């Protein structure tokens, strides 16, 4: 009982850090990922190639290595050290963790969104073209809304992976849930109890995220309750099995 009184406030302090890390890196990572997905699908061979290699490199190496390269490694590069903005990002553990997490999740997000965008039936895009919609308008009104419906379940899983990824920030001096949990474990030796409390906090975050994505999904799919069978886009293989590794 005493242990719970000691551990819960400390771990709750970590909860806010975990939540903040997740939120900021998801916001950056989603936009980067959308950009990368568009680059990957563009007809420009250079940008398509860049997006492909970017996503393979970031998905093919452990997040821990990426975090260490950014936090310990980049400080050695004089170009970074002499640039005040970059140095501001690199010099602090939490900013560095956000950078690494955002770039990492961008790679996975780009694969998920690419699958979603590829599942948009070509006929709908052609119809929009025939109506004289500009590229931007077409993307905003036709392609993106359809793609995000397809991609949302997979993106929900990615969000949970980001939450789990924030735990690695504890290796570069950021005290979030895992960081505090490790410290408490070595202080109190009540290892299982601390694990259980920290685990419950993570499960609560994940449950919350699942609920949010489900309700967004339901809201986006609200038209389907009336006409479920007439207008469901065929689910492509790509969106169903977004590979976790380089393809």
């Amino acid at each position, binding site marked *: 009982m005493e242990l719970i009184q000691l551990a819960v406030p400390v771990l709750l302090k970590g909860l806010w850090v975990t939540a903040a890390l997740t939120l900021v890196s998801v916001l950056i990572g989603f936009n980067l990922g959308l950009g990368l997905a568009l680059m990957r699908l563009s007809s420009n061979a250079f940008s398509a190639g860049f997006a492909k290699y970017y996503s393979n490199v970031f998905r093919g190496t452990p997040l821990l290595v990426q975090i260490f390269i950014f936090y310990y490694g980049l400080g050695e590069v004089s170009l970074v050290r002499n640039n005040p903005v970059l140095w501001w990002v690199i010099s602090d553990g939490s900013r560095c963790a956000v950078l690494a997490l955002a770039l990492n999740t961008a790679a996975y997000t780009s694969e998920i969104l690419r699958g979603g965008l590829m599942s948009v039936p070509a006929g709908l895009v052609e119809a929009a073209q025939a109506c004289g919609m500009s590229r931007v308008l077409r993307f905003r009104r036709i392609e993106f809304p359809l793609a995000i419906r397809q991609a949302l379940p997979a993106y929900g899983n990615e969000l949970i992976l980001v939450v789990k990824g924030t735990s690695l920030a504890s290796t570069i001096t950021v005290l979030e849930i895992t960081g505090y949990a490790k410290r408490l474990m070595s202080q109190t030796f009540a290892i299982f109890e601390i694990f259980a409390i920290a685990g419950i906090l993570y499960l609560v975050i994940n449950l919350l995220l699942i609920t949010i994505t489900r309700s967004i999904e339901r809201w986006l799919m609200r038209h389907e309750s009336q006409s479920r069978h007439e207008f469901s886009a065929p689910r492509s293989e790509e969106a169903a099995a977004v590979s*976790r590794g380089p393809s």
Partner: protein
Amino acid sequence: MEFGLWQVWEAGWVTAILRGAAVTVAVGLSSMVAGLLIGVVCGLIKWARIYPLSLLVDGYTSVVRGVPELLVIYLLFFSSVQFVTKVITAFGYAGLAESGYAFVIAVIAIGAISGAYSTEVIRGALASIPSGHIEAARALGLPGGRIFRRIIAPQMLRIAVPGINNVWQTTIKDTALVSVVGLQELMRISYIGANSTRHPFIFYLIAAVVYLFITLVSQAGFDGVERLLRLRARR
């Protein structure tokens, strides 16, 4: 040289890194095997809905998949470190406690994580086997063991390969996390190298390249296996 590329070569870090990579692959493979064993057993339990056990498996997969890997590793290491060291020293293998113990716990930890993901993959593969096949086998009067060996297992394997590929990729990347508790695998060696030469950039970059190499090679291997299975299915 600015990034100490020469020091990496001169001080014999290359062999150390290669040894670390070998340990990484060994941990990855052993954990994957352990994880697949867990996955097949738990996947079958979950698929067949064997009542009290399936609740246990549900709890296991949702906890391990929802909680950060690092936290699971901390739990297993910290809770076992005193116990295991005592046992090993009592048997007179104090030296073994340094290297062998970390390896075993690492395999248990990563295997448990990989097992949770494998369970879901195997369960999904089992669920996509048409129930008519199993009913037909039952109607022919095949015994349960042979139904599993001849009907369920071959179909399950083929459907599960892409999922197992994904699990393997995450497993090999998760092995980097056991470096935080001291097993001398690729990441730990890079950490030691980075600290002793004060050239972290090149060491972590090399580590990234080696991990990338491992994942790309295994991706090619899995692509080959998938092609092989697809061909055989068509004939």
